[in-house]
């Protein structure tokens, strides 16, 4: 029984791990081996970085990575700032304007605007084909505001009171007391935002018509999901590595940032943020 359970779980893990291994392996394989194994390699006999070299010498991928990094960095910074301020402003029940503002935040959780009105708003504001169209609508997640607010409210009132008696204002209380105590929850929320911006696909599809402005996800859709061939115009190199290797390499490039931040998410939130959120 025990062995069967262990076997089942191992199988589930394999379903996740094996595809990753295969993608990385294929991206590093030679043309001969890819052809021999029918397009997908699990264990490369010889490792070559030709696909990555070709992708990074020029063409669509470096530009797309630059765009994605820009959107992710600017978006996450804006999101963290506004979310923190909003959650802090709502962390003391009974303060001026507390109730209506809270209602607006919770209302945003419940009522999501449709695709069409969202599109019309962005185009009316003249944001089409601007990176801000991808960033601004995603800046505040009401869900994150609610989580962060709950966390701020659990900071002992005595701490805040004693600081106030020592003459600290709201701003100083935020920067000297509240923020240092909230590093863990802020890093998790920041990572949630960052992953969201990095993964943004539909907003980019909807708002960025100019192919020169495409982030990684749109490049991935065009050349991997839709199987458009990568030619010499799309990669910098003179001689083309096999399409399969190029496609897998683009996939790897889009996954690596997620894998890099994953250990941090993992460390903090299984016990902290998430469980707190479930308890409400």
């Amino acid at each position, binding site marked *: 029984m025990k062995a069967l*359970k262990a076997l*089942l*779980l191992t199988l589930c*893990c394999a379903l*996740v*791990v094996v*595809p990753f291994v*295969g*993608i990385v392996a294929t991206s590093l394989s030679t043309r001969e081996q890819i052809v021999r*194994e*029918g*397009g997908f390699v*699990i264990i490369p006999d010889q490792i070559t970085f030709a696909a990555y070299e070709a992708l990074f010498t020029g063409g669509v991928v470096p530009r797309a990575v630059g765009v994605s990094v820009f959107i992710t960095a600017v978006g996450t910074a804006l999101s963290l700032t506004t*979310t923190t*301020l*909003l959650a*802090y*402003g*709502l962390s003391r029940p009974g*303060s*001026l*304007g*507390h109730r209506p*503002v809270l209602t*607006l935040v919770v209302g*945003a959780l*419940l*009522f999501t*605007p*449709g*695709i*069409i*009105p*969202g*599109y*019309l*708003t962005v185009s*009316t504001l003249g944001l089409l084909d601007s990176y801000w169209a991808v960033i*601004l609508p995603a*800046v*505040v997640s009401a869900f994150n505001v609610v989580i962060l607010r709950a966390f701020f409210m659990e900071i002992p009132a005595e701490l805040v009171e004693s600081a106030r008696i020592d003459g600290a204002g*709201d701003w100083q209380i935020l920067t000297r007391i509240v923020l240092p105590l909230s590093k863990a929850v802020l890093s998790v929320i920041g990572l949630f935002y960052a992953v969201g911006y990095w*993964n943004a*696909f*539909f907003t980019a599809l909807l708002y960025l018509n100019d192919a020169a402005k495409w982030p990684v*996800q749109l490049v*991935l*859709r065009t050349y*991997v*999901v839709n199987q458009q061939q990568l030619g010499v115009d799309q990669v910098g190199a003179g001689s083309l590595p096999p399409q399969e290797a190029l*496609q897998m390499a683009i*996939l790897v490039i*889009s*996954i690596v940032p*997620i*894998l890099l931040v994953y250990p941090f998410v993992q460390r903090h939130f*299984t016990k902290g943020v*998430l*469980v707190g959120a*479930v308890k409400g």
Partner: protein
Amino acid sequence: MLLLATVPGLAVLLTFHYLPLLGNVIAFQDFQPYLGILHSPWNGWTNFEVLTSGDPQFVTALGNTLVIMLLQIGVVFTVPIALALLLDSLVTERWKRIVQTVLYLPHFLSWVIVVSIFNELLGGSGPLNTFLRRHDLATFDIVGNAAVFQELVTGQVLWKEAGWAMILFLAALSRIDPELYEASSVDGAGKARQLWHITLPGLRSVIVLLLILRLGDALTVGFEQILLQQQAVGVDASEVLDTYVYNHGVVMGDWGVSAAVGLVKGLVGVVLVLGANKLAHAFGEPGLYQRSPR
């Protein structure tokens, strides 16, 4: 002073959340982009007729949405609970951590990545079919096959989200008082009885909570996911309400009708959440939120 801190965030919510909500008025207009919301002619409930007139494209979209929704609610609740129970019964903490870490990784990948991975693995030239072909076996036509599209989509959701949902159930399992198990085994309860009388009731609040949340999105079945694969399988098998709104509105320019469909879909979601929450209260569950005591 505190109110001042909320201004930037509130400005974003008002501009990109509440302003579009108002923009839903175009559902009652014969909207023309060059005339704008202010000058487009009003046409009452005309746009909503598509909902009741038996328009074949709308009926297809609604039908597909409902089928996929049922498939997903079926597996997305049972498999993660089974996984959590399985994992919880394995003793060593270290193994638990490793398995968890692996299983919820796909949650953080975008749909573009997930669809790419599925295409590469299960497609005609992927390792599965290459293997079958080499051994002279019949190949599976999975990617781009309209007949199995809804199952494929459900499988993708399972791969991406099962591990993530599992964590919530694991957290709930860890809060069940171990003394309950000890006491019941002293009373002679077997594993099956413990599962039924202790474990599942312990999970009830989380199950109810997740069900309410899912109901709010009941009519939202994998918009990005399906849009990415629509080209390959065709509209008949893959059109759902969200893609209908996108295709008819943004792509074909039938703004009023698609806004009407989107509006009704959104309202149904809100009604379902509020209704389910009320029902949960009636059964003595905390649900998603409670009226604060002030």
